[in-house]
């Protein structure tokens, strides 16, 4: 059978402009080769910077942000599309090869209706008339399980949800009957409960239309559900390339093994103690416009333990953290810390109360002043809470750097000179500098690659063991909960639906929402998606 897509020795370079230095040529992708047959799915997996999106876009002969394809061949049905020229490649894009972006919310034009955007390429390439394209759009909306398919196309991008937009983008890619679709992390920005629906819809749609696909992701468990073959990439080079079964069940490379085994750790929970460090009692909160975001939440956390709060976006989990910090004073209920009531409003809190509760954010990038060095960032709370200056401050900063497993050499670096994981470590050191008793962690690892995230989690656990720290850990990732939590709170639409020690909270009998949440988490297991969908089908048939 002839190959649909054949990539040989692909080399992609870009010019980077480091501040104050001469421009530098960097190689993003180096010597990558693979083949893809009609109707098959190849998964490209790797950390950020591995070059997987860049390789995906090369199937459309496109270089994003100054990336240039400088070597090798990309052949589609035997034609090297890199040699086609501007007008030639335009006939390939949007007709033979289509692209699904990670953020459909940004990739759709806010000024046009979804239906018009979905059929645009098919009509403009002369593949079908407007009427035919509309019919096909309607068919695809149905296949992808979009609500009210007849009128869905009349809506504007801002009028539908993120999961629906991602499916609409898939419909847009499928509409011209392409031979190949490049999916670039299509479910990464979605909640797990939404991800599983989108994943199932994509899988169903590409099987139904017999379209080949490149599926790019950093989540091996996801790609295992949808691919025939998998290519593992690191630093722009191929680490391992084989069938999905071989990669998951018998990886030959150390790096692949690490990816497969990531987060398979689980820790024993500590027993519940009678004396709670933090006690949230029947707390409700609302925005100033009267919109109620928390309804009567009660939970507690013991000293030296970790409470994981899980839920999808909009469930109120971050709002609860804002209430505990005093950023959003509760409208009802009370919060006690070590037996004493916490001042509701942040501005009124005495300095010592502020010191005892610290925060780590999801985006370490935006939580640090880019014009301050690591010394200033970590040193600020030392001066603010303990009045340290000069040599004493420097000594303490160095001590903290040691605690977060970074060398003294980092002390005069700026955030831009640190990797994502290092930035998050500095943010942890800044929180530690105050010698807090409680650290609120708001999804501190969700923007990081799995192996880096694992390092951060291990560090947090080590610090907890050393100094009896307590964590409130907000996450949407059940695997993290298993790995680090002692007790678990599940939130849904501003209400607490489940709370208790981990062993009890994460075992049956479940309430409906927790059941859905747990079943939606992709597992590193072949055929997991089919199994879940089958049980669902049986459950709905039984009803």
């Amino acid at each position: 059978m002839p190959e649909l897509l054949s990539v040989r020795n692909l080399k992609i370079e870009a010019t980077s402009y480091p501040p104050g230095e001469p421009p530098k040529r960097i190689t993003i992708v180096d010597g990558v080769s693979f083949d893809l047959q009609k109707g098959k799915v190849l998964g490209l997996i790797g950390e950020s910077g591995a070059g997987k999106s860049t390789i995906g876009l090369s199937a459309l002969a496109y270089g994003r942000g100054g990336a240039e394809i400088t070597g090798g061949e990309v052949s589609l049905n035997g034609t090297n599309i890199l040699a086609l020229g501007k007008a030639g490649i335009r006939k390939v894009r949007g007709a033979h090869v289509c692209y699904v972006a990670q953020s459909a919310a940004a990739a759709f034009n806010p000024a046009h209706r979804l239906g018009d955007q979905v059929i645009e390429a098919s009509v403009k390439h002369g593949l079908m008339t407007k009427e035919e394209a509309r019919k096909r759009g309607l068919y695809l909306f149905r296949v992808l399980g979009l609500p009210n398919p007849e009128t869905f196309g009349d809506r504007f991008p801002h009028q539908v949800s993120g999961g629906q937009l991602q499916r609409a983008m898939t419909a847009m890619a499928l509409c011209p009957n392409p031979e190949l679709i490049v999916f670039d992390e299509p479910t990464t920005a979605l909640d797990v409960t939404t991800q599983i629906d989108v994943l199932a819809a994509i899988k169903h749609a590409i099987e139904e239309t017999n379209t080949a696909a490149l599926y790019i992701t950093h989540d091996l468990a996801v790609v295992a559900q949808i691919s025939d073959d998998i290519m593992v990439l690191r630093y722009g080079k191929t680490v391992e390339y084989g069938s999905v079964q071989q990669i998951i069940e018998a990886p030959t490379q150390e790096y692949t093994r690490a990816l497969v085994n990531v987060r398979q750790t689980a820790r024993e929970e500590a027993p519940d103690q009678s004396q709670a460090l933090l006690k949230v009692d029947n707390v409700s909160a609302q925005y100033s416009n009267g919109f109620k975001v928390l309804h009567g939440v009660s939970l507690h956390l013991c000293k030296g333990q970790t409470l994981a709060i899980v839920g999808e976006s909009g469930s109120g989990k971050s709002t609860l953290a804002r209430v505990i910090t005093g950023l959003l004073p509760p409208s009802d209920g009370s919060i006690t810390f070590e037996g004493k009531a916490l001042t509701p409003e942040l501005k009124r809190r005495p300095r010592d109360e502020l010191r005892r509760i610290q925060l780590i954010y999801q985006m370490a990038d935006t939580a640090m002043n880019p014009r301050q060095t690591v010394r200033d960032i970590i040193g600020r709370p030392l001066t603010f809470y303990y009045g340290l200056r000069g040599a004493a401050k420097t000594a303490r900063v160095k001590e903290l750097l040691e605690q977060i497993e970074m060398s003294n050499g980092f002390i005069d670096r700026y955030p831009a000179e640190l990797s994502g994981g290092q930035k998050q470590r500095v943010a942890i050191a800044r929180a530690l500098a105050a010698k807090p008793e409680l650290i609120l962690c708001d999804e501190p690892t969700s923007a990081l690659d799995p192996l880096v995230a694992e390092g951060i989690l291990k560090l947090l656990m080590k610090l907890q063991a050393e100094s009896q720290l307590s964590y409130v850990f907000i996450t949407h990732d059940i695997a993290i909960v298993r790995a680090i939590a002692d007790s678990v709170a599940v939130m849904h639409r501003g209400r607490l639906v489940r709370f208790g020690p981990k062993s009890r909270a994460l075992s049956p009998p479940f309430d409906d929402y927790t059941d859905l949440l747990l079943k939606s988490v992709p597992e590193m297991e072949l055929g997991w998606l089919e199994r879940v969908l089958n049980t669902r089908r049986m459950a709905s048939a039984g009803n």
Partner: protein
Amino acid sequence: MSNPVETESLPGQRFRERFPLLALLIERMLLSLLLLVAVSVLIFGGVEALPGDFATTYLGQSATPQAVANIRAELGLDRPVVTRYFEWLAGAFQGDFGTSWASRNSVSEQVGNRLGNSLFLAGFAAVISVPLAVGLGMLSVHFRNRMPDKIINVISLAAISLPEFFIGYLLILYFAVNFGVATFPATVYEGMGFIERLKAIALPTATLVLVVLAHMMRMTRAAILSVMSSAYMETAELKGLSAFRAIVKHAAPNALAPIINVVALNLAYLVVGVVVVEVVFVYPGMGQYMVDAVTVRDMPVVQACGLIFAAVYIFLNMLADILAIVANPRLRHPR
């Protein structure tokens, strides 16, 4: 995504939820009206607080206390300031700005004539500068970071840095004095032919164009660039659309709002900035009229001119905001 919305159902809030666009527009217009009233207080109060007095200036050497008191009584200046303010405001809203103290003519009549001249000048400058600015902006996007872009940038920066009166005098020096191709002063009168009129206002128009061009051009460039770097433009390219279709169909609708906004703001600046230019070129418009009135302390004229300038400025700003609101699909098509 759609949490059940739980709000205290105040009637205003419900209207706002059902017609967010209409509610926003009404709010914006009411705000403009409020602003105009506030400005009228400032103008009236400011003029009231000015040192000097029409009666003493008018009478000059013969300003005996009795004569001054007579004139003040005749003009109604002996009445309380609040009464006079409300009378003035009520008149102004009906288009009656009272009578000029200096010429004893109706202010509204004179202003009408002068305002027409000013709007003609500003309008003509707008007709030239808006297409020119948008065109140059698109040109510099097309040649981004290359020579033509840099040249346009430097020249526009230079033009924006020079004060308008200085540009005016430079133009007079070269085009009227040295080369003799343009006319100065820019006198227009009733019954003047259209072509003659254009010839007379060539230099003041050029000055105004130079002043507003740079700002509009740079904002147009920035607006287009920000749209061009957005993800949906990449989507358009990856759909294999032609560059022309991508720009017309996908970039233009999104770049339009910020461009309309900056154009409207600059039109407001044109109308108000005309004051200095009119004085430099001795052009019989509102600006010249106002400056003359200030020198003889002819307060009704000063107040009328101030209020009209403020109204034009507020109106054009409101127009800019309304167009930006209407151009936003999120507000036009609520969830």
